[in-house]
């Protein structure tokens, strides 16, 4: 597994494999337990395919009671558990461990309730993101967060990763669109957070759970907000001679009080790769291309299109085309949406990175990436959620050339370091998982990380849920529980007593 350091496997657990499988079979009968190597192959990686590992055993429960019993059994017997939804994580969040049960939630695939007057849908966690929209669109509704894997990714996985998408500047991330969950703690206890009502009576445990990457609990039900689909959407395709001008255009649009439904940027290599692939009519003589989508009532969209067009021209746009039909809008998007496979055509392999930066730092970061590209001798193409500063550099490499994956990984790590240096973060929407785990100290000091691990301790003090992910090193909870301040050794020995 390409040098990835994972927690030391527990030989005693692996020796008990047959017993564990038998115990799980007693909880989930029939085909709900998979322990034959060939059948477990399907689960050995998620969408971060560079890393693979067979699990100890796979269990696919069908009821909340089964999830509860599986977790209680694992807790009582000190067996690690890796939860998995559809396995579309790009950061290795669902990468199995050889001494851990892989808990697959794909059989939780039912929509339980659609409540239009309260505008919520209650679904099981294995329902796909797009499946929610499909279930409500005949009434004109949809579920807003739209990660690019929405056709396959599960809503439970979306909660675990706090998934985003191209529309999140206007419509928010998963955290802003989930109203409630039912979850099972590692002890087997079933708890409900939120529901059809808003906000929490106590601590925002739902906020902590969202984006916790399967380390705090297993989601067994999700209540999401559904929204009425905007009446119309139109897009502009705008090309600029420099990324600075494109960046200024984005800043001016926001300064004018406009929050577009989507605002995507591509750099020259990405534009060329996409155009060669889908022939969307992208200009090839520009350094930066913006796709700006306005959605809402027709009157509003027409009003805003005119404003945005004026802003684009003022900022030196050399191409500015407004979609005149739904077909044309889709063509504008076709290139952007095909950017990843398009890059896949011009390179045998690529790594997709996911940093976020303050938008104004884009020119500096792009220049830094050009330097790094030269240093590593690898090409890079960029797509960018321009509205919210989420950058996806695609690093092109060839896995058949020895050491090139390693080089690409180092290049990627340097890009993320650069993102943090300019005030950004390691991951905007793909999650830390195993991929960015060892970079966490670039962004957080030991105190920061220890406080996060203490949250983990409140939920799972034995560190049984998804170990080896997110945190470079998991301190034992008892160790972290010690207080380091003792009477007489504080900074204020002279303070008056009351």
């Amino acid at each position, binding site marked *: 597994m390409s040098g990835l350091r994972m927690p030391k496997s527990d030989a005693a657990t692996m020796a008990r494999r047959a017993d564990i499988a038998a115990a799980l079979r007693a909880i989930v009968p029939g085909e709900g337990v998979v322990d034959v190597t060939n059948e477990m192959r399907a689960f050995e990686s998620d969408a971060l395919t560079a890393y693979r590992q067979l699990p100890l055993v796979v269990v696919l429960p069908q009821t909340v009671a089964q999830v509860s019993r599986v977790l209680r059994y694992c807790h009582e017997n000190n067996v690690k558990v890796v939860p998995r939804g559809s396995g579309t994580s790009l950061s290795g969040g669902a990468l199995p461990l050889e001494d851990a049960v892989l808990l697959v939630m794909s059989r939780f695939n039912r929509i339980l309730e659609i409540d*239009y*007057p*309260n*505008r*919520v849908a209650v679904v099981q966690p294995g329902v796909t993101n797009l499946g929610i929209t499909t279930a409500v669109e005949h009434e004109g*509704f949809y579920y807003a967060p739209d990660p690019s894997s929405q056709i396959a990714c599960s809503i439970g996985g979306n909660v675990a990763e706090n998934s985003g998408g191209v529309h999140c500047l206007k419509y*928010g*991330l998963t*955290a*802003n669109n989930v109203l409630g969950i039912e979850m099972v*703690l590692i002890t087997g*206890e079933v*708890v*409900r957070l939120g529901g*059809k*009502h808003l906000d929490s*009576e*106590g*601590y*925002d*445990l739902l*906020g*902590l759970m969202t*984006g916790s990457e399967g380390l705090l609990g297993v989601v067994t039900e999700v209540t999401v907000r559904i929204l*009425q689909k*905007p009446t119309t959407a139109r897009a502009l395709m705008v090309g600029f001679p420099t990324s600075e001008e494109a960046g200024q255009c984005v800043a001016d649009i926001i300064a004018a*009080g*406009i*929050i577009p439904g989507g605002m995507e940027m591509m750099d020259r290599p990405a534009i060329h790769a996409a155009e060669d692939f889908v022939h969307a009519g992208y200009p090839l003589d520009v350094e930066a291309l913006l796709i700006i989508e306005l959605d*809402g*009532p027709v009157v*509003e969209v027409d*009003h*805003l299109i005119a404003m945005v067009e004026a802003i684009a021209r003022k900022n030196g746009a050399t191409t500015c085309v407004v979609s005149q039909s739904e077909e044309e809008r889709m063509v504008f998007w076709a290139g952007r949406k095909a950017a990843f496979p398009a890059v896949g055509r011009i390179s045998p392999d690529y790594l997709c990175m996911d940093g*976020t930066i*303050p938008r104004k730092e884009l020119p500096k970061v792009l220049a830094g990436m050009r330097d790094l590209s030269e240093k590593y001798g690898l090409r890079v193409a960029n797509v960018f959620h321009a509205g*919210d500063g*989420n950058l996806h550099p695609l690093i092109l490499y060839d896995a058949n050339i020895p050491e090139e994956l390693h080089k690409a990984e180092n290049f990627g790590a340097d890009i993320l370091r650069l993102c943090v240096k300019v*005030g*950004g973060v*390691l*991951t*905007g929407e793909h*999650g830390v998982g195993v991929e960015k785990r060892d970079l*966490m100290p670039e*962004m*957080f000091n030991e*105190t920061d990380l220890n*406080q*996060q691990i*203490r*949250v983990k*301790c*409140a939920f799972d003090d034995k560190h049984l849920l998804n170990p080896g992910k*997110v945190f470079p090193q998991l301190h034992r909870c008892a160790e972290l529980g010690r*207080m380091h301040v003792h009477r007489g050794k*504080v900074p*204020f020995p002279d*303070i008056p007593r*009351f």
Partner: protein
Amino acid sequence: MCTGVRFRFPTFRDSRLTIFQPKTEDEVVEAVQWALAEQAPVEIVGQGSKRDLGRPLQTEHTLALADYTGVTLYEPHELVLSAKAGTTIAELEALLAANGQAFQFEPMDYGPLFGQIAGQGSLGGLLATNLCGPRRLKSGSARDHVLGVRVVSGRGELFKSGGRVVKNVTGYDLSKGMANSWGTLGIATEITFKVLPAPETETTLVIRGLADDQAARAMAIAMGSNGEVASAAHLPGNVAGRVIDGILNGEASTLLRLEGFAPSVADRATMLKSLLASAREIDAISGETSRRLWQEIRDVIPFADRTERPVWRVSMAPMEGYKLVASLRMGAAVDAYYDWQGGLVWLRMEGEPEDEAVRTLVGKYGGGHATLVRAPASVRAAVPVFEPQPAPLAALSKRLKQQFDPSGILNPGRMVAGV
């Protein structure tokens, strides 16, 4: 040094009270480390505007962030603002307004309900109580807009979480963890929020004369339409006379707020009027009057009566709120109005808080939570102010508290005994 800024507060409160008023983050750390060494519980306040909310505290010491103020970062084009915890919301809102921006979640001001002047609350208090307003359905609450925090935990350690960018899934979202924690987990010293353009214009459609249940249905239709309704509230007849100088004429009023660019607002107003035409005649209130109306709904002005009569804030599914009120009225005298499409119910009781009745009925009508926002201190000490949690959840909350504040020195018991 904190010693230099401690002083005896010339106050109506216990004269033994000690106040720390740190001016730097280091002083906050030092004050907490002192409290830790002394095992001395400390009340945490920002500007002190919400002291009458929650369970009464019995600490001898107070740590007030009133002097830890100032904007540390504001980049309008990046839609981001950071400030120190003691900075007043009023000051920040004025700064944002001068740049055509706002906290889109419209933080409410509890001042008037407690008989205080408005505009006192601090940014730290805003996050600690997870404030929001009538745009909650569409735009979320403080927890939906916070991007990053610097926090001093009950261990006397300074940690940070999040950042200054909108899209960030790096590690657990401890910024959200601080929301609605009422100063019991840590002291957020500096907070970063996403800010957004203020709407260019607003109009409120007023439907007269609907009963509570009819209003709930009308609001559901409006919110489920393409009208992009920002806020939906219903003021029954006896409440409607108590806002914006009585211009609603004391007639039951169902209110739909439309915001945005002028041509869009006009277009959606027309669409909604025709959608709801069968209901009643529909009036419109625009501009400053509309803004004031929603501010008064937000700040519970109808119940800002300078009494201590119990006031509840109940969050439920929008279509259930009116059922709670109808059932309560069978057994108690109660005044009520609705925000959030009917899902936020403000209740004022004539006599006792009737906590058992309120909470039993919330459970009966789909669940949610009821907070006893206003009541005499003796009542708030005896009646659970916040909705009691089922045992596994209460235990989890307690474990979380222990991980942040193992000695229980930060606002102990402000939310729940033992937390």
